[in-house]
């Protein structure tokens, strides 16, 4: 196909053309103004003037004739396929994804004369798809953001498509479903071309699901948190009332039942507000589940697992001491100096079996030690318990030790501080509490040793963040301790920070200060009762007594999982979805942490499970990403250990489907609205043949350019006309 057009020569800049045109118009205007004021008009003067000016202008812009040969090719059509995980939902005997693949093939077939490109959208940038006979579409991400996909397409280099075909079920993350046509055009109209839509399904499945969970504010330990659970129910099932349950998944113990309620469903949706109280700070894995009606065809979205990050407003401690000493004084003084710590303390000031105060009880400032009340009613409200030199039998703690051990297993903290009535000396050996301490206890009659000694840092003690504050003050020096409780060897997984320089157990130095984990909780064993010398002693005076606070800051901070005292930070990159891509965990070392990285992942179940262990050698300070395949839905705890330092823990949730499957209903009205707003056509799988074909694209194959006249012709004509114009003016007396 041949076409001929006129143009201005290519080597003249636009501003020259504009200036020339402006001067030509100005010259003609002046000429008209001059001649209009004369009584006798001279057409020769006007004509020659206009033609002379025009010739000058043409000599400047030099017009050319363009002869082009053009071909017509098929229009470019972009097919956007929804790749969100939602497309994996079942639809009859197939999945929506399989139906989407069918739709894409048929669209490509329908637009056989067009140049079609198939692109996938979901989370992240557009991805080109190749649909061969054996290739499938892979899903990616929970979201399907059509607005971002269209924007990316509009911003891409190259030829813009003449039409876009969107293949989806319509349940987009964006644009939302309740937008007006102008709003929809704003959201998906960046290309300025019609968006045709193909709905992969119009069938609403018989399904009840937890659509969303919203918390009113931030979760704070020990404080009630209002949680709103939105339940959706659609299809031909009994959707009137659906029971909902919230549980907390914990390590090594059964899940804790936090709340139950019933969602009253109206128009396919219902909400239930439940109040839960989480007692432990940090990441906690909650399970939200509903009791689905009979006939529910998608049981995978009946349960959601979510990680709640629980903040701690204040630390609430229970401090029990068997007798008042300078060691008790030092600990109380430090605890009370911290505004963020609430201390509930009970010190045994009088032993009713032996002490003789010589006064009736009403003249004494002593109250009954409410041991039963504390351990049955209030224990759960504390973040940690400190047992300092208190005899378990004499003060009737022994009947509550199993409860105290369970409390620790459920996430509480425990510190046992040395003294004649601590550890085996306080009848703790062989009890339920013994089993959760980081060290074993001797069961013979040797409860303690009186010989003074100076504890020694272990290799782990040198590496641990928990001891960094005190080491910064005192280096490796520690004050002399007057005796110690006899302790057994460290339990598996426990970390010994201080050890005895002379006493040994099982061929190793006896632990003096050890850290351990028990279920969800943490425990500390300190075998001495002289750490008050870090607060008050000649050595303490060299650092103004700050060494005591430095030690206990670290111990309590570690016990409460303060990130400052962890060796590493563990986080999940992206989502953890059962059956999808590998879960990626990123481990970031704290500055200065040396040694190999060992990452252990275990399910948060009562029975536990086979731990998955990854070892990364080396000391690299760069964050390490570790891919973990095959995680099932549920809660997990990841423990990262750097070298000899105590492990850092991070609990996280894995889901089956997750937010992508929370709402299984297709949204055909949204697809219709998008098509209508952009001038496109909305069809189902059966209507793909009705999609309109855009106009063909014209492509130039050959182009010839020739000047209308050489430049000297325009110049000569202008000179001649100017001469005629000059003569005419002289004859009419205008010069």
């Amino acid at each position: 196909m041949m076409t001929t057009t006129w143009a201005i020569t290519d080597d003249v800049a636009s501003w020259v053309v504009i200036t020339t045109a402006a001067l030509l118009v100005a010259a003609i205007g002046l000429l008209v103004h001059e001649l209009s004021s004369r009584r006798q008009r001279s057409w020769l003067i006007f004509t020659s003037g206009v033609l002379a000016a025009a010739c000058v202008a043409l000599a400047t812009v030099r017009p050319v004739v363009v002869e082009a040969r053009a071909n017509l090719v098929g229009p470019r059509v972009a097919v956007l396929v929804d790749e969100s995980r939602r497309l994996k939902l079942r639809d009859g005997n197939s999945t929506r994804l399989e139906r989407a693949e069918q739709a894409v093939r048929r669209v490509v077939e329908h637009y056989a004369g067009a140049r079609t490109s198939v692109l996938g959208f979901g989370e992240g940038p557009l991805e080109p798809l190749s649909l061969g006979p054996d290739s499938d579409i892979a899903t990616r991400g929970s979201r399907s953001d059509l607005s971002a996909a269209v924007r990316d397409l509009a911003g891409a280099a190259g030829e813009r498509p003449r039409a876009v075909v969107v293949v989806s079920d319509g349940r987009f993350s964006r644009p939302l479903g309740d937008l007006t046509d102008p709003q929809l055009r704003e959201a998906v109209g960046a290309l300025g071309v019609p968006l045709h839509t193909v709905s992969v399904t119009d069938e609403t499945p018989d399904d009840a699901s937890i659509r969303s969970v919203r918390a009113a504010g931030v979760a704070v330990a020990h404080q009630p948190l209002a949680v709103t659970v939105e339940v959706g129910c659609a299809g031909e099932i009994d959707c009137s009332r659906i029971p909902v349950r919230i549980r907390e998944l914990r390590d090594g113990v059964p899940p804790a039942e936090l709340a139950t309620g019933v969602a009253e469903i109206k128009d396919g949706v219902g909400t239930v507000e439940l109040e839960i109280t989480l007692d432990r700070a940090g990441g906690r894995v909650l399970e939200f589940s509903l009791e689905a009606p009979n006939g529910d065809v998608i049981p995978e979205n009946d349960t959601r697992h979510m990680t709640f990050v629980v903040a701690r407003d204040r630390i609430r401690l229970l401090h029990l001491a068997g007798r008042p000493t300078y060691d008790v004084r030092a600990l109380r003084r430090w605890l009370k100096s911290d505004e963020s710590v609430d201390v509930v303390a009970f010190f045994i000031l009088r032993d009713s079996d032996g002490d003789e105060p010589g006064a009736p009880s009403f003249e004494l400032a002593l109250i009954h030690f409410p041991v039963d009340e504390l351990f049955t009613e209030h224990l759960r409200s504390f973040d940690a318990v400190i047992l300092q030199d208190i005899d378990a039998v004499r003060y009737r703690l022994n009947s509550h030790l199993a409860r105290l051990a369970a409390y620790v297993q459920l996430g509480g903290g425990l510190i046992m501080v040395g003294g004649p009535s601590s550890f085996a000396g306080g009848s703790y050996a062989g009890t339920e509490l013994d089993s959760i301490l980081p060290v074993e206890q001797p069961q013979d009659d040797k409860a303690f040793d009186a010989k003074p000694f100076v504890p020694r840092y272990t290799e782990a003690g040198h590496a641990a963040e928990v001891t960094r504050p005190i080491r910064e003050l005192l280096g490796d020096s520690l004050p002399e301790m007057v005796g110690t409780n006899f302790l057994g060897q460290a339990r598996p997984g426990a970390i010994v920070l201080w050890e005895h320089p002379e006493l040994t157990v099982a061929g190793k130095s006896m632990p003096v200060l050890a850290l351990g984990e028990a279920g969800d909780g943490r425990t500390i064993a300190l075998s001495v009762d002289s750490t008050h010398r870090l607060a008050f002693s000649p050595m303490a005076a060299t650092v103004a007594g700050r060494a005591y606070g430095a030690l206990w800051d670290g111990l309590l901070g570690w016990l409460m999982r303060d990130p400052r005292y962890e060796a590493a930070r563990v986080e999940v990159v992206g989502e953890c979805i059962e059956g999808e891509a590998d879960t990626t965990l990123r481990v970031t070392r704290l500055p200065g942490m040396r040694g190999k990285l060992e990452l252990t992942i275990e399910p948060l179940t009562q029975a536990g499970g086979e731990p998955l262990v990854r070892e990364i050698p080396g000391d690299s300070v760069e964050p390490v990403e570790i891919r973990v395949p095959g995680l099932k839905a549920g809660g997990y705890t990841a423990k990262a250990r750097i070298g000899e330092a105590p492990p850092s823990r991070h609990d996280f949730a894995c889901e089956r489907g997750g937010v992508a499957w929370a709402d299984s209903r297709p949204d055909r009205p949204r697809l219709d609205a998008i098509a209508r707003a952009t001038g496109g056509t909305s069809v189902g799988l059966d209507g793909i043949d009705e999609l309109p074909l855009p106009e063909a694209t014209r492509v130039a194959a050959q182009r010839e350019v020739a000047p209308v006249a050489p430049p000297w012709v325009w110049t000569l004509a202008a000179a001649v006309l100017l001469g005629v114009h000059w003569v005419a003016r002289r004859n009419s007396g205008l010069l």
Partner: protein
Amino acid sequence: MAGQGVRLSRPNLLSRRSLLCAATASAVAGVAPRAAAFGQDGAFHPRLLLNAGRPLDAAHTSGTSRWSWELIRRTSAPARLTVGSVAADSTELLAEPFTVWLGSEAVAPLSEPEVRGLRTYLNLGGVLFVDDSNPDVGSFGRSVRQELQRVLPESPIVQLPQQHVLYKSYYLLDGPVGRVKGLPYLETIAAGKMLRVVISSHDLVGAMAQQRGGGWTFPVEPGGQAQREFAMRLAVNLAMYVLCLDYKDDQVHAEELMRRRGRLRR
């Protein structure tokens, strides 16, 4: 088996009763002894402050052993029956957080090392109990007050309020008494809620002083044995305050103690 491999043996733990029996005749040692048994390192120890090398008044100082004895007898707190002494310019002053400064005559001005030593001790959280053995004359009390102003020039000496936890740290008390009735209040230098110095014009230690044969060294006036009992109760409260600080100000005690206080006043 747990605990296998522990090599060193341990001494037998003395029972509280046997400890008391063994120590009834204890005396004041010339140098403050350090704790030598497990569990005794944090025991209450009313050690005496040496005053410019002057010999201690033996008639009064026996009262500090009795103080420890009474604390052990009446409470669960451990205490050191053999009481030592310590100089203000010695690093040993920083070994324990309680010191008693008693005397009956004006003290010589403290040397600069003694002032610095006491200042470090008090700034570190130590408690100094000043007990005037001769409050009728008062020269000791006046001179000590002058020296304390040198040690802590920014901290005034004020009356200890009757509601202070010191009066309820073990016994419920209405006020201070000692060998003499003295002022109806104690005086103090405090840092916030923490008492740094407690000043008694009641010869509290004198009320507890014993002769070697077992009798009381000084008569107690004007209340006799009843007053001596209340002096001992004050001493026990002071020891308990040193060991537990403001423990009895905790909310868990407040309601019950208020009720008992009301009953006592009726």
